[in-house]
């Protein structure tokens, strides 16, 4: 009987020890940080608003600033906190229209490029985070129809369409962004203003304009209209024409490019409704060729008419080339390739039964990734959305 009692009380003790042990384990769990991972949709109960996000940047307070177009060419800014919750939003006055990708960061401030509603010339706007607005910083009357802006922290380049001379222009600004240092252009030889108007009003095809500078800073590579086609152009450091990969009329060309150095590029190209990736290919900056000749792997599930973003990202001290694209079923697809190779390391889909469209992405200060997307809420309303992927999830992807 005595022995029985000992066994019984040991069982109690074991249970209490188990309870305390499990309790301590539960208490020891690391503190949850809501900013590490989130999905946010920036609501507007005004049902006649239709948003198209363009660019996202992280701000000095670790929050995010988003640049969007709404109802065509109107401009909207959203500022969030670190956890993605909306702090303020701002509609620019109607004279400022056609914001172009991307937001640019200089000396701790954010800027973007847009157009005058009547004069069609270019403004550089400075975001005023304290005033929860944006102010005119500079205007360039000679640059009509701005289409894209690129900042490599050394110089700022603006691509535009010269409507009177049917040219695609490229303009290099000085460090203070108050003067045009030099300009270059290529002939389109035909009037493409109808395409440009559809592009900037979101009433037709959005062409994937881009500008990049090679790491050696010897060439500017950009996509734009040239010689009756949508082409990929190489301009030398003086902004003189160097080489071209012509698209198939206006139905082929490059969606996106990332110069890797030494004439190597990661790129996405389209031909009609087909999309192709090559994360490591050689392009000759003095060639005159066609984009269809660039070898690339077809991506049957991806939508060629949606934006494709290609950026460098760093996970666990290793560099990857990341592609963000939209599937034909309106999911986002993130593909990671080993830098300097065509090896697909990992891919991940985002979204299931709600239409998403890839718009931008960037690595965050905490080693995570934030995706900017357009989401069609309740099958009806196009809104801006962010999806934050935490660092650990990225690390798991590449392990």
């Amino acid at each position, binding site marked *: 009987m005595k022995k029985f009692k000992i066994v*019984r009380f040991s*069982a*109690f003790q074991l*249970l*209490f020890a*188990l*309870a305390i042990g*499990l*309790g301590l*384990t*539960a*208490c020891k769990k690391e503190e*949850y940080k*809501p900013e590490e*991972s*989130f*999905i*946010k*949709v*920036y*609501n*507007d*109960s*005004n*049902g*006649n608003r239709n948003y198209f996000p363009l660019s996202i940047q992280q701000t000095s307070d670790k929050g995010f600033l988003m640049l969007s177009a709404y109802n065509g060419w109107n401009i909207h800014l959203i500022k*969030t906190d670190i956890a*993605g*919750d*909306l*702090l*303020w*939003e701002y509609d620019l006055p109607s004279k400022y229209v056609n914001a172009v990708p991307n937001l640019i960061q200089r000396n701790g401030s954010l800027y973007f490029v847009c157009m005058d509603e009547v004069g069609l010339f270019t403004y550089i706007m400075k975001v005023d985070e304290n005033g929860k607005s944006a102010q005119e910083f500079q205007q360039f009357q000679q640059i009509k129809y701005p289409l894209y802006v690129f900042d490599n922290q050394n110089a700022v380049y603006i691509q535009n369409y010269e409507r009177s001379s049917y040219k695609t222009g490229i303009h290099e600004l000085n460090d203070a962004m108050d003067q045009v240092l030099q300009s270059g252009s290529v002939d389109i030889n035909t009037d493409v203003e109808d395409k440009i108007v559809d592009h900037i009003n979101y009433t037709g095809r959005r062409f994937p304009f881009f500008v990049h500078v090679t790491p050696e800073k010897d060439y500017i590579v950009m996509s734009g209209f040239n010689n009756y086609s949508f082409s990929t152009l190489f301009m030398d450091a003086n902004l003189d024409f160097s080489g071209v990969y012509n698209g198939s009329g206006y139905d082929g060309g490059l969606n996106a490019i990332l110069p890797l150095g030494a004439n190597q590029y990661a790129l996405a190209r389209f031909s009609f409704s087909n999309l192709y990736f090559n994360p490591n290919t050689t392009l000759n900056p003095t060639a005159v060729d066609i984009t269809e000749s660039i070898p690339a792997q077809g991506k049957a599930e991806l939508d060629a008419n949606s934006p494709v973003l290609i950026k460098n990202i760093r996970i666990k001290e290793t560099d990857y080339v990341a592609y963000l694209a939209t599937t034909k079923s309106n999911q986002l697809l993130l593909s990671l390739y080993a830098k300097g190779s065509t090896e697909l390391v990992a891919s991940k889909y985002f*979204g*299931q*039964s*709600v239409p*998403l469209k890839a718009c931008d992405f960037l690595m965050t200060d905490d080693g995570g990734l934030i995706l900017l997307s357009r*989401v069609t*809420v*309740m099958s*009806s*309303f196009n809104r801006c*959305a962010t*999806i*934050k992927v935490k660092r650990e999830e990225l690390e798991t992807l590449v392990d």
Partner: protein
Amino acid sequence: MKYLLVVLVLSLVSLKVQGQNYTVHNTGKSYLGLLGGMNFSIPRITDRYSVLTSAEEKFEKEYDKFGKTKGAQFGLQYSYNFTTAIAVLIGVGYETLGFKYFTNYSWVDTLEKQEFAREMHHIQKISYFTVPIQAKWEITRGQFTPFVQGGVYMDFRHQATKIIHYDNTIDQEETENQLSYSPQVSIKEDTRKFNLGLTGGVGMSYHTKYATFGLESNFRYGFFDVVNDETRYTDRNGFALLYLDVLDQLKLSSLNVQASVSIPLNNAVRSNIMRKTKYYKKR
């Protein structure tokens, strides 16, 4: 009328407790019991999260009031009486808890004169294996005796599910002629595996020579978070964007009512725990 009924029942119980023919003598006896009943969950929201964010409004979920979320529990219970009054109880059971909330959103298109409204009723159920360890004090020694009990419990999550009922009329009710349903999905990974809490309750026991019958009500106070913060936005079910829904952080308590029947072990029947009261007036 309701109060009169309560007073009558209490008077009868009181008479029954005081005027009993038998007293219970079960010191050192063990019982094995079967119990089951229903419960009402009480969520305590600690942190709120939402997918939609706006400068004008906070999209906070509205939780159903107490009594709206019913669950059930059943289990086995071993008890050992140190004295006639004091016993220790260890059980193993299975319980279903839950919580409900509703959300609503609307958009108005002033140009095209279109409106769109969506009301969603979110129903979550979580099942746990539960291990309560309690001390019990039977207040009298009679055949029919009230008792109080209290202790700790451990919950081990077994499964968790979620379904959303939705309609297009914002009235806080499920509008039958518009009602649609999401698929029922598992939210097991979105809930935490373990919980620990305090439990305490009151009840009545009716002892016989062959079995003890009980009716009790317990309050269970969960200490730990129920929702797994780490998987909140992984959106494995696709509900985050489709239904604009992620779970808040909360702790779960519950109030249960259950009946039990216990049979004596270790020769208790032969040793006759029920003895005539007139021979044992004093404890």
